[in-house]
Structure formats: C-alpha cells, structure tokens
C-alpha cells in the first residue's frame, strides 16, 4: 500500500511531530498565557501538553485500526463513502486554514519586527516558494529536513538561556495568583500554539514499526515540545514583570533585543531568523497534510500536483488576514475546527469503530 520510497522511521516520525508542533505560536504564547494564568502560565503549558498527550493517544488508537490508511482513506471506510468524503474535505479545509493562519501570523511578525516596508505579497511569495519546494517531495525527504531543522530548537533554547542574566524570580510568584481555574483556562489557550500533532492522522501509515513504537515516538515528540514551550514561557515570566508582559506581544523576541555579544548585537534578529526555519517546517507539514488529501481526490494519490494551487489558496488566505478582524475570524474558526476535527471527531470515530468491531465478532 505504502511505497517503500516514502516510508519513514520512528525517529523521523518523532521529529515530524516536533517540527509540526513548533510554529508561530511560540513567540506570542508567553504573552497570551500570562494574560490568563499570570505567574502559573508555565503550568498551563504543561497541562496543555498533557491534554495533547491524551489526544495523541486517541489519534494513535484510531489510526491503529487502519494501519495502512491515512485519514483520507479510512474516513470513508468508517462513515460510508459520501459522509466520509465530505469529512475529508472538511479536514482538508481545516488543514489549509491552519497553514494559512500560520503563514499570515508569520508575515505579521516579520513585518512588525524586521521588514516594515516590504509588501506582504513579496514576503508571502518568498516563503511559499520555499515551502513549495519541499512540500512537493515525498514524506521521506520532508522527514529528513525536519530532523535537521530540529537543531534550531536547541539553538533557540541556548539563546533564551542568555535571558537568565537579568531574571527576577519573584515575578512568577504567587504562582497560583490567578487560581487554578484560570490556569486550566490558560491551558486551553496554549493548546493552539501546540497544534500540529494532527500530522499523525496523515503520516501514521508511513511509519515503520509497530503501533506501540509509533505512539511512543509521537508522545516523546510532544513531550519535548511541551517542555520547550514551558521552558520558554517560564523564562519570559522570569524576565518581564507582569505589567510589562501585557505590553509586549512577542516577549520571547523582546527579551533578546537588548543583548549583545562581542561581535553582534540584536540577538533577537538571529532568533527570528532561526524561527523562520521552524515556521517553514510547520507550514510544510500543514501543506503536506492538506495536499495529501487533495492529491487523493483529484490526482490519484500524487500530492505533488495539488501543491501549486494549494499554495495559491494559502496566498489568498494570508493576504486576506491582513485585516485583524479576518485573522480573528480565522482564529475562532481554527479553535472550533481543532476541537471538532482533532478532539471530538476522532473520539467519536474511535468509539464507532470499536462498536463495529464488537458487533462483527
């Protein structure tokens, strides 16, 4: 079913999960979480990570039922052809919208921090062309790059370690200032920067090995990323007093702005450049998820052919998101989409398949 050429190992699978999860959200996450959960923001992130772990369990259990099918091929098997195909299109649009939002937010940040004068379309074309170059490849090549670009995460951690020069530990106290209710609410907020693990639905059948190993790889990836996010949020909370946090929309960049090495200053630019890698890989994984579906429906499984017009759709989506009201609309749609398509629906489908199996036996 799955050609030898696009099989990936479990290690690669882990990095795919990692790279899909790290995205644009990381820069603004501390700000958003702090607004709700105050000094306990980092706990919120950890809770969100746990929640995602549960979701990953569900997704893996679901995929396990169809070891050689992607979501696009097993949906019709469960729900019947018509409904299944309809749901597939819903998934495709959810993935495309996610990719579009990532792209739009990326452009926003870059326009705010570095290229104020560059028109949005130029930036979008630049990033889309680069992503396209990778997205047309098979999963194995994509996985190769993802493994390497995970190195940037290490560099990012090292760079943010420098922030510890002027930390004030009293800034995170009292940890439960906002109350546990708020912290849990903050967790639901920090769920969104962590999305991307949906890639399991699409890549699961391509992974070599047993289902236990696959689950382990995905969980490990999620754990790494949750820890990374929690670390970054924690660092920001230590550096900026609560009053400042609400003023700065990208604390992670801001904290590096004043640092200087002997030879270079503006470490935030370096950080931002590395972040380009991370965002591009996240974008590629969303595009891949969407185009695999498109390819299945329109190009007899060749996702490559779907990439160019998917790019065009993304371009339009990201151009429209210039208007804050539209980008807010995207966010709301994504939240709904996330809960329905990644949490709700798989759970229902899982129960459904179990029921069917039982009845048969």
């Amino acid at each position, binding site marked *: 079913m799955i050609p030898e050429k696009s099989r990936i190992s479990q290690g690669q699978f882990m990095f795919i999960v990692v790279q899909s999860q790290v995205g644009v959200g990381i820069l603004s996450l501390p700000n958003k979480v702090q607004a709700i959960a105050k000094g306990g923001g980092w706990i919120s992130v950890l809770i969100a990570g746990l929640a995602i772990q549960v979701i990953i369990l569900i997704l893996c259990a679901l995929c396990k039922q169809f070891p050689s099918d992607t979501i696009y091929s097993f949906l019709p098997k469960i729900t019947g052809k018509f409904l299944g195909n309809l749901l597939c299109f819903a998934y495709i649009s959810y993935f495309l919208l996610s990719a579009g939002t990532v792209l739009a937010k990326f452009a926003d940040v870059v326009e705010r921090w570095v290229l104020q004068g560059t028109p949005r379309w130029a*930036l979008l074309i630049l990033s889309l062309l680069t992503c396209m170059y990778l997205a047309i490849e098979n999963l194995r090549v994509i996985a190769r790059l993802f493994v390497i670009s995970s190195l940037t995460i290490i560099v990012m951690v090292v760079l943010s370690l420098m922030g510890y020069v002027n930390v004030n530990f009293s800034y995170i106290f009292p940890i439960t200032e906002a109350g546990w209710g708020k912290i849990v609410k903050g967790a639901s907020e920090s769920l969104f920067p962590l999305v991307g693990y949906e890639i399991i639905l699409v890549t699961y059948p391509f992974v070599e090995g047993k289902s236990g190993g696959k689950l382990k790889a995905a969980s490990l990836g999620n754990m790494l990323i949750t820890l990374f996010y929690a670390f970054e949020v924690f660092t920001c909370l230590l550096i900026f007093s609560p009053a400042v946090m609400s003023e700065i929309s990208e604390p992670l960049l801001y904290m590096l702005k004043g640092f200087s090495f002997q*030879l270079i200053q503006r470490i935030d630019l370096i950080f931002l450049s590395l972040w380009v890698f991370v965002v591009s890989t996240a974008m590629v994984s969303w595009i891949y998820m969407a185009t695999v579906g498109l390819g299945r429906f329109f190009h007899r499984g060749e996702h490559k052919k779907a990439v160019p017009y998917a790019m065009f759709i993304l371009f339009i989506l990201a151009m429209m998101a210039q208007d804050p009201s539209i980008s807010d609309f995207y966010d709301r749609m994504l939240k709904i989409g996330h809960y329905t398509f990644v949490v709700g629906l798989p759970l229902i489908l899982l129960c459904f398949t179990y029921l069917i199996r039982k009845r048969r036996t």
Partner: protein
Amino acid sequence: MDLLRKLLSNNRTEKRTHMEMNVYSSLEKNMEFIENQLFHSSDLKWRSIRFNQLEGLIVFFESLTDQQRIQNEIIQPIEEKREGTVDKVITSLEITKKSDLGEVPHALLQGKCVLLFEGTVEVYVVDVTAVYKRSILEPENEGVIRGAHDGFIEHLMTNLYLVRNRLMNPNLVVRYYQIGKATNTKLALLYMQDLANSDLVKEVDHRISSIAMDTIFSPGFITELIEDNPYSLFPQILFTERPDRVVAHLMEGRVAILSDGDPSALILPVTFFSFYQSPDDYHRKWMVGSFIRLLRLMSFIIASLIPALYIAIIGFHPEILPENLIFSVKSSIDRVPFPPIVEALIMQITLEVLREAGVRLPSRVGQTIGIVGGLVIGESVVRAGLISYPMVIVVALTAISSFVAPSNEISLTTRILGFPLMMLSGMFGLIGIMFGVLFILIHLCKLESFGTAYFAPVMPLRMKDLKDTFIRFPIWSLNQRPHDPHPKRLNQERNSREWEQDDPGKE
C-alpha cells in the same frame, strides 16, 4: 515509453555490429579491403615477408605501434625461422587468430599489427601497441603534505596498476567498457565484489552502457551523462587523481570509473561531505585532522554566506554591529557610490575573472596577475572610493575560504551559491538569507545520487556515520563503514587495539 526506449537502444547496438566478412584468400584483395576501410590513410604501413614459403604482409599503423617491437617480436623471428607455426614463432605476448576481415581495421586502430598470408583465410592480430606516457607525478591540484605522492596519469593500464598495487585483493573487479561510437574511449569500472552493493554496480553498469554519444572526451562527459540530477549545482560525483583516495573509497563500497586518456577517476556515489575529506586527514593525528576538517566545513559556510551576510548587515540591519565596529565600517563605506549589492557583485565577478585568468596563463604570467589583482585592484579600488575596505576583506575571505575545499568542483559551487544568496539578502535582508539557506538545505536533502542521499549522514541522520563527517574520530573507533553507499558488509574492524587488553599483567 520504456518499450520505445528499449527498441531504440536495440537499434543502436545493431548499428554498431559491422558486417561479418570472411578473409579473402588473396593477399591483394585483403589489402585492398583494409585500405579502403581506412581510406588510404598515410600512416597505414605494410611490409611484405615470407613464411612457410607463403607471401605475407605485416600491416600496421606507424603512429600507433611500437616499430621496435614489430622488428624484434615479429620480423626477426620470422626471418630467422622461416618455417613453423606462426603462434610459436612470434614472441609477442598477445596473438589472436581472426577469420573476420571486418574486425581487422578496428584492431589496427587499437594499435595492433595484422599478419596476412597468401591463401590463408585467417589473419593473425599481434599486439604491438606503442605506449607513450608521462611519468607518475603527484597531482598538482590535490597535493598533500603527508601521504602518497603518486597520481593517476593519462594511461589506463598504469592507473589500474596503481590501484591494484594498493589493493591486492581478488575481490577487486575491473570491468572494461568502450563508449563513444567515434572515439571508442576505453573505460574501466572498478569495485569490490564483496563490498559494493550489487544494485549499485548494476545501476552504474546500466547507465554506462546506455551512453550513446559518439565522442567522449573526458570524465566530465561521463559525469553529466550518468549523474542523477543534472540541474543541481552541487557535484554528485567525486573527481580525484589520487590512487589512495580511490582505494579508500573502493574499500567503503563505492565504485570508481577510470577512463583512458584522462588522469581523473570518478567516484560514486558520494555524499556532500566526501568533498571535504582529504587523505591528509588520515595522516595527521585524529584531533588535528578533525580540527582541519571542521575548518574546511566552516569555510564552506563562510564562502557561501559571508558576502550575503555583509550585504544584509550593511543594507538592512546595521544595528547588528557593535558600537566600536560600526564606526570603523561606516567611515569606510561612506564614500562608496554603489549600494552594497552592486559593490559585492562587482568584486565577486572581478575575483572570478582574476581566478580564471590565472588558470589560463602560464605560471610566470599568472604571478603577475596575482600582483595586479591583489595589489592594484584591491588597493586602488578602495583608494578611488569605488569599493569599501570591508567589502574587499569580505570578498577576499570568500575566495580564500572557498579554495580551502580539497575538491575544485565544490569550491566553485560554493562561490556560485553565494550569488543567489546575495540577491536574496539584497531584497529581504537576513530573512531572505534564511529562506535561501533553507532552500539550499531542502535541495540538499532532496538530492540523491545512485540511491544514496547526498547529504548523508546528516540528512537522513545517522549518528554512527557522524564519527567521520564533521570531525574524524580515531581510526580504531571507526568500526563500521559509512552507510551511505549501502555496502554489503558494514563492519570493517572489531578492535584494532587489542594489544591493550593483551598485556595488562606485564608491568
């Protein structure tokens, strides 16, 4: 499509086989045929002899044969003995009987001489090829400080000798090919039977035999005809003139192609990092070797990125420079009339021109070029206020770093890679460079040559192979061969320092 191709290729082979023709019994007819076939070329010579009371002819190309040998090995014995069987009388090493006259012109062209006798329907083909070759010297472009100083020459047999001599192993297999319909260039494919992956050998064999060009001048042709990604900027086949390098690669399970008339051997499949390994690394202490290798890889990054980074900093993000540096840079660039991208392009192109001029000119004039380029252009261009000092430094750094690479191909690639990066940085600053780098990385991880990932062992990541990639671990710790050519046997040693365990009680 495939079927069509097969048909075509069949046609091709059919064309190559000439018409079979029996040898005439009449000497004159035979002679006439040969002369006609070779269009009465002036260097075709013949000499009549008598043997067993039969009129005979010795036909040869005076330009291709060793006339001393004809004299000693053919004419002299025949004149002395006068009678007997030809095979026994002639003292030459290689002598074959042929009954197909059509093969005769071809044999002549290979430097053989042909014996014809009146009334005999067979010809004797005797190998008396003249060999004019230069001596074995150290290749100029791949010199090392320590290690073997011999290099390949333009003679295939000598080259094979150099390899065989180092690798006295029955598993070393040599396969001959003749490609180029017109030039009939001789190729030799070398591999280790017990190491090289048989799929790889089959694939290489397939690709070489499908070459249908009529002139093959140089290995460069072969590279272009058999490599996987002709549109890529990166070289995918390693050229080397060093037998020790060839042997080392053969022992890793790779395949080498040697061709007659050219001193370079092609090694494939190779990874990006093979271009940054030099035999020198293994002659030094491993720590020193590692340091030098890291330096080389760093120079790759410097050579391709530094001009772009400089443009981005000067043009987009001057705030990156610290206070004490920015003013000294600023004082130099204040008078320059061009934007940094133009400035960089001018200097880079000047550099390439100077380099190319230096290659073409004889070495004495080449030195003058160096002086003109380095002193006159470097100094006066700054004095005239056209280019700034930092830019000259940047370009010089680029050039020097790119020349560090042990392979000439990759050093050119590095510098050319710099150009698109410069453009991107001229448009988008650092962000543009990052996308450019990402693009290059994507390209590198897409590239595959002969079933091997080009950027292995980094993409795909294989920790064990990293031991001999960025740094060189001690040789006794390299227990496995690199995985990228998929060798048949991975292990190459278990413990070469077993003596350490042997004598703990002695002291």
